[in-house]
């Protein structure tokens, strides 16, 4: 520093001041408390009230959870172990009836590995669909999964699954050969080819029922949380394509097709699921040809799928309506026909907008699978209300069982909704 102005300047700083901590008024735990919890008297009262509520909840819940008895054979034994006036819960019911809660009471115990394996495979099969970073090669597992899962859970000869898969593959090959000459032609030819293969395959499978056969397990033996998962997964995956078709139909300019879709959607959305389950339980049989004997699980799957597809159709219709008009006109001006413009331009964008809504419907549907307990199917809730709570040993163990059911559903549903929020962030292409 030159001393030119040394006489006119009283003081010149020659070094930087080191970094200072922020003012004590603005940081620290106490300040955070004051800003977020006690900023004025009203918030202070609210905070104290909230603290009291949390205290009441935890003081009831923690002793119940931590002081619980996990090893006993009946509620009386539980009470003996816990002692007089103990706050602990009787969680022994969960360990003793664990398999019943998960698989139902008549699924053969030596076959428990099969649905378990199917669940593990589900994770592998779902991964490439859910996460874009998983290698695409795994999509092969996704394609095979439905057939493998059927084979694992229901058993019987492996030929049934193989033939069903073969039909799908043949159908797809026919479709991809003919799709250049028009979508409708390709689609219907593919479906026809698949049906032919299925017919032939049906004869072959019936002729050789013992090829790599697993013990056959009838649907009525399915139960527990497994039944909820089966219904949820099957119905959501089936209702997605049907929902897309219904949504396109409702947006269609062809009046008859439009009105068929509108009536179907509004009818299904207007009635509670429980009435549709009554239909599956007692009415549907009247509409089938005499002598056919659908099992209950299949009838329930049909009705829940119809129910879910109507809701998914409404969500996708919202997505379609949200697309700017220019996208439709742009597709037309490129010379694409209806099927091409939908497949290549409209649906990819509309489905992306609809993802949060579709996930909401999926979560709601999975929760609604508990309703089958009302038509006396033994899903998780049905198992609890029926065989377990009615048994001599566990009559009166409400909180442990309902709490467990609530916990299982919470884990799954909360997980799905967190995933959907993550996916929304991943897919967000607008810059905000």
């Amino acid at each position, binding site marked *: 520093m030159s001393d030119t102005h040394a006489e006119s300047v009283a003081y010149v700083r020659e070094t930087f001041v080191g970094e200072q901590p922020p003012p004590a008024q603005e940081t620290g735990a106490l300040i955070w408390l004051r800003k*977020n*919890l006690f*900023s004025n008297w009203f*918030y202070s009262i*609210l*905070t104290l009230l*909230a*603290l009291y*509520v*949390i205290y009441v909840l935890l003081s009831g819940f923690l002793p119940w959870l931590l002081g619980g008895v996990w090893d006993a054979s009946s509620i009386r034994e539980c009470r003996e172990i816990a002692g007089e006036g103990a706050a602990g819960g009787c969680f022994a019911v969960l360990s003793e009836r664990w398999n019943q809660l998960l698989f139902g009471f008549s699924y053969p115990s030596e076959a428990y590995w099969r649905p378990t394996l199917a669940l593990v495979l589900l994770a592998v099969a779902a991964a490439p669909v859910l996460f874009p970073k998983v290698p695409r090669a795994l999509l092969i597992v996704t394609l095979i999964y439905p057939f493998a899962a059927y084979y694992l859970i229901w058993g019987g000869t492996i030929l049934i699954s193989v033939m069903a898969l073969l039909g799908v593959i043949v159908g797809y090959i026919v479709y991809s050969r003919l799709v250049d000459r028009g979508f409708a032609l390709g689609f219907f030819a593919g479906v026809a080819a698949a049906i032919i293969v299925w017919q032939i395959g049906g004869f072959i499978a019936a002729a050789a029922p013992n090829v790599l056969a697993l013990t056959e397990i009838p649907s009525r033996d399915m139960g527990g949380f497994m039944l909820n998962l089966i219904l949820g997964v099957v119905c959501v995956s089936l209702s997605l394509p049907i929902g897309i078709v219904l949504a396109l139909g409702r947006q269609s*300019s*062809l*009046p*008859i*097709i439009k009105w*068929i879709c509108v009536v179907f959607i*509004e*009818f299904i*959305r*207007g*009635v*509670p*699921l*429980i*009435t549709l389950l*009554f*239909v599956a339980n*007692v*009415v549907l*049989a*009247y*509409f*089938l*040809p*005499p002598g056919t004997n659908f099992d209950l699980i299949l009838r329930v799957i049909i009705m829940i799928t119809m129910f879910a597809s109507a809701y998914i159709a409404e969500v996708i219709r919202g997505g379609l309506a949200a697309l700017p008009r220019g996208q439709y006109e742009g597709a037309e001006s490129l010379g694409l026909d209806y099927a091409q413009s939908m497949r290549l331009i409209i649906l990819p964008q509309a489905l992306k907008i609809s993802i949060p809504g579709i996930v909401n419907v999926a*979560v709601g549907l999975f*929760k*609604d699978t*508990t*309703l089958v*307990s*009302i038509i006396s199917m033994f899903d998780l*809730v049905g198992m609890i*209300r029926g065989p377990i709570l009615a048994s001599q040993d566990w009559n009166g163990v*409400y*909180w442990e069982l*309902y709490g467990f*059911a*609530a916990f299982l*559903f*919470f884990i799954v*549903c*909360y997980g799905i*909704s967190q995933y959907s929020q993550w996916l929304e962030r991943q897919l967000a292409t607008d810059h905000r």
Partner: protein
Amino acid sequence: MASISDPQSQQDSFRLSMLLNDTRYRGLTFQFIALILIIFVMAYLGMNLVSNLATAGLTFSYDFLGDPAGYDINQALISYTSQSTHLRAAFVGVINTLLVALFGCITATIIGVTAGVLRLSKNWLVAKLMAVYVEAFRNVPVLIWILIIGTIVTISGANPRAFLTRGGSVEPESEMLFGAFAFTNRGFYSPAVNLGPGWIIVLLALIAGIVGALLWRRHMRKTLYASGKLLPGWPTWIILIAPVVIAQLVLGSLSLSMPDVESNNFNIQGGTVIGKPFIALWLALSVYTGAFIAENVRAGILAVSKGQTEAAAALGLRPRRVMNLVILPQALRVIIPPLISQYLNLTKNSSLAIAVGYADITATLGGITLNQTGKALECVLLLMLFYLIISLAISAIMNVYNASVALKER
């Protein structure tokens, strides 16, 4: 040359392949195919139905509705005995469904709005607590919540005997709240309202009060727009309340009959009993739907941009008027449509009443009547029709509302 490009001559030479390849006719072809398919499927199902009914020796008729039902219903707002007809049982169910739906919607709205606003609170603890409430109820099936709350309600409450004084000779174990309300294991006892002579006049006075209050409101607005003078708002309440109070004081036609704990040694007499199934279902539906409404309310408030508040403040509006005139009308436009669909969901979820033993339409018509008469088809059809009518009515209301608040674009 002209004839080649003449559209008239092309239309004349109609070929069959044009039905598929020509965009003018393709739509018609597809619709025709769809129509034929639908008719075919319907006819197929109908024929199956007819032959199945014939095989089982059943006929499709609603005659059974006139037969005596033969079962009791624990809560009936209209007079009903086990000798009444199935039709009357169904009516009892309809009224019970509407009752629980109405009360559920009211409390769910209160809970939901409170939780939604508190979730946006600057108070960290309260906001987190509300987030836990919303997530816990949204992610667990409503049936499980109905069962849990049903169990809580069922095992709580003292025996009615605890309230009895046995003609004033015994000191009761529990006091009634204000001498009028008691929660026992048989239900919730509260005073009953007796309609004496002239109750119609009291009712008319009430209606007159409401009309008068609305007219005063309109007068206030007109004066404000015409002269800019703001008339006071308190006369609204006086106009609303005064006529019915005066009518009641003069005529004395409405009277309360308190639950009587003295005359009987075994049970509380008189008053109104609200049954436990109703309380359980009402509470469960309210807190469950409240969690969903809270999310709608939160989204609605967040949808109004901060600039609106600031602009209103810059115009010199007071905070309350900012809320009433600027924020709420815009937030409500976002909140109301999903709110109404939540009401619809609540009504449909009330069909799970059967799980706590509440006698709604699904439990009477779709439950006991169906099982007793075996008329599955008729009962389920009637049940669906009822819910369909309610749904369509609510959607109609929603459409009218949406049209009235839609942004007026020119």
